[in-house]
């Protein structure tokens, strides 16, 4: 185990963290503003990945694929908001869980219908292929660095959007007081659709960016969705800042756990067992961390 | 005078820089109605929340029946006999009136962890519950779901619940709110009887009712008690007139 390897893993953790943030930001915003728990957020992630893969393979351009992922996920988000989600704002969480669970079934099976059961592959754009030399003798893939940078920039952009723009003011007003926002003369229905589509676009972008690192397949959104839930629960539901910090925490703890736990277990167990047990036991790590945090702060670290 | 049933001493509760309860001392003696009045935002709700246990004070003590209850939870206080009715009517909405009261009887008996015997045929629950409903004049409406009761009847039901709990003191939070004149009159005379059962700390906006009922009045302004006394004393108190009553006359 070398320092270079550790730094590489740390960067991988950051990369997972910023992707989780893109998912979690939408989830937490939708919950904060509309009071809705949306299980189908992972499906929007999947829609983004498939749109990117399809457009990239048609046009040969990853960048057009990225734009398509944003557009497709935003459109899918807006459509389900208008058709389904809108009817759920006044319902209890149980109904929201069930209806969005139903949406997952529809999206997953629908995607399989259109694209078949085989995974699609997305190529990393040529400009970002290869590795970058970092200080300390670390060779790190350029694409992953770009993903970290993009995620960081989007986080900054989102912060600016929320604090500086008219839309942001309306969103914050909506979080604090739904009646006030009506009094401000804001069309709440449109605002909700816009917020939902924005969250969907972020999820779709995350799906596309991750799609180039893994394969693009049905069900890819679900593990990420559950991690994003862990993130927003740890961060405090409704808090963008909490989501950002918790996303990085979860990303780094998860990645470093997978990296370090097998090494640690190898000191007491035979190597093969240390590998299998350590690998999956580290999947439990963030849930244990979440349980600990909630035992002391039942409403998360940055509860609104 | 006998020992106070409820003794609140030097209670302080701050929210940031705001002192919502500012060194409040107030007591409740057997057989009396002690009214707590004050303009909106004076901190009446915050004070009631601390007395019933939903908010913890920053300092000060609350003693009930000679026992320090400052650090007990809501359920524990209720079991000791500190009965509260709510500003916003909040009974179990899907139950009938009778089942609401039966639940209070059950809580008083401390027996929620019995898993077998059906409650509907349990005379040790239905008996006392019907008695309490009869006392407030709701016996005829016992089997109706709460949703079908009028606003005034729900208030009566809340008092029946407090009776069934065997309350040793009542905290009544705006019992007259939303009642027509007839309901108010009926409730006023009922409360006058009820105080023989257990003393009442009454928060109420209806000044006619307060002046008709209260044995003593405390006036809360900006978290402080600015005066405590009989109805006459409060009517004459110059500080009260400027701070509060002036607005109404």
């Amino acid at each position: 185990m070398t320092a270079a390897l550790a730094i590489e893993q740390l960067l991988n953790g950051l990369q997972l963290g910023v992707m989780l943030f893109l998912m979690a930001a939408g989830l937490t915003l939708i919950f904060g503003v509309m009071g809705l728990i949306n299980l189908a957020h992972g499906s929007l992630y999947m829609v983004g990945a498939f749109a990117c893969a399809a457009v990239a393979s048609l046009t040969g351009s990853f960048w057009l694929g990225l734009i398509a992922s944003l557009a497709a996920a935003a459109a899918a988000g807006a459509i389900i908001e208008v058709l389904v989600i809108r009817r759920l704002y006044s319902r209890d969480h149980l109904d929201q869980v069930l209806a969005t669970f139903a949406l997952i079934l529809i999206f997953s099976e629908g995607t399989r219908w259109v694209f078949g059961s085989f995974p699609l592959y997305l190529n990393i754009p040529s400009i970002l292929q290869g590795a970058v030399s970092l200080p300390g003798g670390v060779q790190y893939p350029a694409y992953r660095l770009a993903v970290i940078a993009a995620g960081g920039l989007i986080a900054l952009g989102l912060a600016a959007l929320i604090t500086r723009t008219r839309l942001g003011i309306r969103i914050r007003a909506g979080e604090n007081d739904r009646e006030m926002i009506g009094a401000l003369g804001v069309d709440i229905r449109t605002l909700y659709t816009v917020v939902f589509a924005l969250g969907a676009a972020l999820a779709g972008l995350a799906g596309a960016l991750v799609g180039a690192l893994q394969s693009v397949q049905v069900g890819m959104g679900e593990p990420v969705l559950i991690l994003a839930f862990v993130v927003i629960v740890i961060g405090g539901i409704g808090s963008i800042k909490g989501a950002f910090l918790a996303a990085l925490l979860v990303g780094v703890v998860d990645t470093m756990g997978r990296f370090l736990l097998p090494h640690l277990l190898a000191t007491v167990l035979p190597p093969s067992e240390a590998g299998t047990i350590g690998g999956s036991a580290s999947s439990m790590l963030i849930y244990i961390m979440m349980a600990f945090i909630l035992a002391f702060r039942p409403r998360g670290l940055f509860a609104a | 005078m006998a020992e106070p049933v409820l003794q609140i001493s030097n209670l302080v509760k701050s929210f940031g820089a705001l002192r919502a309860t500012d060194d409040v001392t107030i007591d409740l003696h057997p057989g009396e109605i002690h009214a707590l009045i004050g303009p909106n935002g004076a901190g009446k709700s915050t004070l009631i929340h601390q007395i019933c246990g939903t908010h913890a004070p920053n300092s000060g003590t609350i003693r009930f029946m000679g026992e320090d209850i400052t650090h007990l939870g809501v359920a524990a206080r209720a079991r000791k006999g500190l009965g509260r009715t709510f500003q916003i009517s909040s009974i179990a909405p899907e139950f009938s009136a009778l089942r609401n009261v039966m639940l209070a009887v059950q809580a008083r008996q401390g027996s929620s962890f019995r898993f077998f015997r059906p409650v509907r045929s349990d005379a040790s629950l239905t008996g006392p519950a019907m008695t309490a409903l009869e006392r407030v004049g709701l016996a005829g409406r016992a089997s109706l779901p709460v949703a079908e009761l009028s606003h005034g009847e729900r208030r009566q039901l809340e008092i029946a619940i407090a009776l069934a709990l065997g309350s040793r003191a009542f905290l009544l939070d705006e019992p007259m709110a939303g009642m027509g004149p007839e309901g108010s009159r009926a409730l006023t005379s009922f409360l006058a009887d009820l105080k023989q059962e257990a003393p009442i700390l009454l928060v109420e906006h209806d000044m006619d009712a307060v002046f008709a009922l209260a044995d003593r009045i405390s006036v809360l302004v900006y978290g402080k008690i600015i005066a405590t006394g009989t109805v006459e004393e409060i009517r004459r108190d110059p500080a009260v007139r400027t701070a509060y009553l002036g607005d109404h006359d």
Partner: protein
Amino acid sequence: MISREWTVNAALALALLAAAIAAEAAGQVFYITLATRIAILGLAATGLNLALGLGGLVSFGHAVFFGIGGYAAGILGSHAFSGDPMIFGLEGSNSMPLIWLVAALAAAVAGVVIGVISIRTSGVYFIMITLAFAQMLYYFAISWPAYGGEDGLSIFVRNAFPGMNTMKPLSFFLISFGALMAGIAILAVLRGSRFGSALDVVRQNEVRAAAVGINPFPVKLTAFVLSAMITAVAGALYADLNRFVSPSMMSWHMSGELIVLIILGGTGRLFGPMAGAALFVLIEHNLGELTERWQFFLGLILLVTVLFARGGVLGFLAGKVRHG
């Protein structure tokens, strides 16, 4: 007077029983298996119904208890089969009643641990935390190579029940059906008891419950743990039905499906989970024959049920829920 709901309930239960017996008479083993699946899934959802329907605790992690029951059957049964002792030198067992007891106790332990942390929260936090705990144990099952890890664990010979040949499909159906009826009876008794009243008022208005002196936390925790125990017994039966147990029994899809069963059947009904399980299994079977995209249509049916037909099957057959 027997109410319309109870007439419908009795008819549903008898229909399930009759279907299995008719399938036996016709020599259609497959349909007995379907009926058994309905009974077992109905029992699992009946367990969840105690927490979710009566207690308002939307547990999105109940599959974990289902899986714990499954592994109890798989682990005890495989040790009994191989004769190897388990940890602490304990013997395995292939006796269903003993397996159910172990399943229920193991689920109770897990239920207390999960419940103590998650019941402190409420609303959407509770949903997500129960989900996260289930994921945690799901990954634990995957990472546990001794009992098959991700590949799961086969049960070579179905575990035994005194006086019955469990390998005969109808016998195993009758055991499962009996367990379902017992589970529903337990819920009926609990619902009518003092505990049931307390749980109901906690669900309706937690603040009010505290105000009359009923501390919500222990009431909710007890309901959660009892609910976990019933679901675990169903899990043990399910493993015996499939003669296989794997981490997928604990997956979040399974948790979601258990909730779906309750809603399809009709929330707040004793027989809702059974009706929902019947509908679910029939949809799965019939749509599955028509199209391999049956989950797409299941999603649509579920969506329409949630948005427009909140009463579920029993709401349609037996009218609105009445409270006393």
